[in-house]
């Protein structure tokens, strides 16, 4: 069995495009999922029972089912039920955004709840309104608590984008596996795919460690 690694160099353009798609998906998803997570967290903490219930149901559903199945469901089921056809990219982005919003909701909720009650009491005692207490006292502190967890979520999201390959979205995984099918250079392409993910993911993981070290235990 001979291995021909030149296929990797020959496909470098396509692979770069795929890697770029992976990065784009990650950035866009996080851009939607951070405000989405904050919204869900506030709903979860709201005194309105309906808002709370809705948020809880949403979060539990997306946390307790596999992302790959959420992607399949969105892709195969939504068009037949809603009579509208989204592109693979849009479907993947939707599934990823809702999934990560659910995780972020829990992260933000824990961050907000971790701020001692005395802090908001001190704000109220000064005559601040509830909204002012949130803006001035609670949220700024919660954001610092939440940043390390968001970094970890980012890295997990980066890896999870590979799952959109199953609905033929042109990310790195899909691109590499397509070239593998066309060229029959299985070991070469799959190894290249692994190496490329590793090269992009390893620094992100190390950066996350650094963020955890810098921000944790700063109280």
């Amino acid at each position, binding site marked *: *069995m001979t291995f021909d690694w030149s296929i990797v160099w020959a496909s470098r353009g396509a692979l770069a495009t795929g890697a770029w798609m992976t990065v784009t998906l990650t950035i866009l998803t996080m851009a939607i999922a951070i405000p989405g997570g904050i919204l869900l967290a506030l709903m979860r903490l709201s005194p309105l029972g309906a808002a709370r219930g809705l948020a809880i149901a949403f979060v*539990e*559903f997306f*946390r*307790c*089912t*596999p*992302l*790959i*199945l*959420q992607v*399949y*469901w969105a892709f*195969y*089921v939504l068009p*037949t*039920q809603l009579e509208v056809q989204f592109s693979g990219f849009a479907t993947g982005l939707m599934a990823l955004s809702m999934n990560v919003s659910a995780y972020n909701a829990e992260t933000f909720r824990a961050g907000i709840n971790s701020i001692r009650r005395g802090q908001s009491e001190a704000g109220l005692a000064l005559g601040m309104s509830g909204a002012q207490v949130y803006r001035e006292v609670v949220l700024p502190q919660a954001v610092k608590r939440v940043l390390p967890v968001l970094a970890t979520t980012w*890295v997990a999201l980066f*890896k*999870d*984008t*590979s*799952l959109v*390959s*199953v609905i033929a979205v042109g990310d790195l*995984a899909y691109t590499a*596996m397509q070239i*593998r099918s066309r060229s029959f250079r*299985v*070991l070469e392409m*799959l*190894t290249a*795919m*692994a190496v490329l*993910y*590793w090269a*992009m*993911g*390893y620094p*992100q*993981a*190390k950066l996350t460690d650094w963020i955890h070290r810098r921000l944790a235990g700063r109280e």
Partner: protein
Amino acid sequence: MEFTLGPVLDNLPFLLRGLWMNVVVSVVSIGLSLILGFGVGLGRSFGPRWLAVALAFYVDSMRALPVLVVIVWTFFAFPLLAQTSIRPVPAAITAISLHVAASVAEVVRAGVESVREGQTRAALALGMTRIQVLADVILPQAVVRMLPAFTSLMVITIKDSAVASVIAVPEIIRQSETVAGQTFRPFEVYTFALLAFFAILFPVARLADWLYGRVAHLGRS
């Protein structure tokens, strides 16, 4: 949006066999990853420096790789490299175990290092050997703190078993694809799969939350 139970009920045994496959893959992977993860975690904390470096490389690499990539490489590429063949289920179990074991190792390492140094010193002062210190003093205190994180990893492993569908492991997503293709009712079939996973994962996730609440007061020993 109409929902008829027909397609699901007609093929229920077929779908449930798929779900059982998820369970089997998950349970075996959890067991193997716990064993491997403990070894790696303890090796990093207590082993010689060259071993700690090598194991750190393994752990960090697995953190950088999506589980899909590891599964696919194990099933398609590894046999070519090793001039052998591997069946889908063993490939999935191997890949998932290797991937999750890295996370287990991190939990073990953090748990062991969260036990105060004074505990080790006190035990050594009593004349215990290093192995005894580990087994009788450190691990009992550390394992309690690790339980919530392990439960979270169980949730992740069960979800990873669904990714094994891409290498044609006959788990529930694969079975659902077949049934949906035959009955032209993807809505009912995939919704059933979602509900089946939810029924399994919801209790485990709640267990993890409960455990996190129980050990929260422990802090550093």
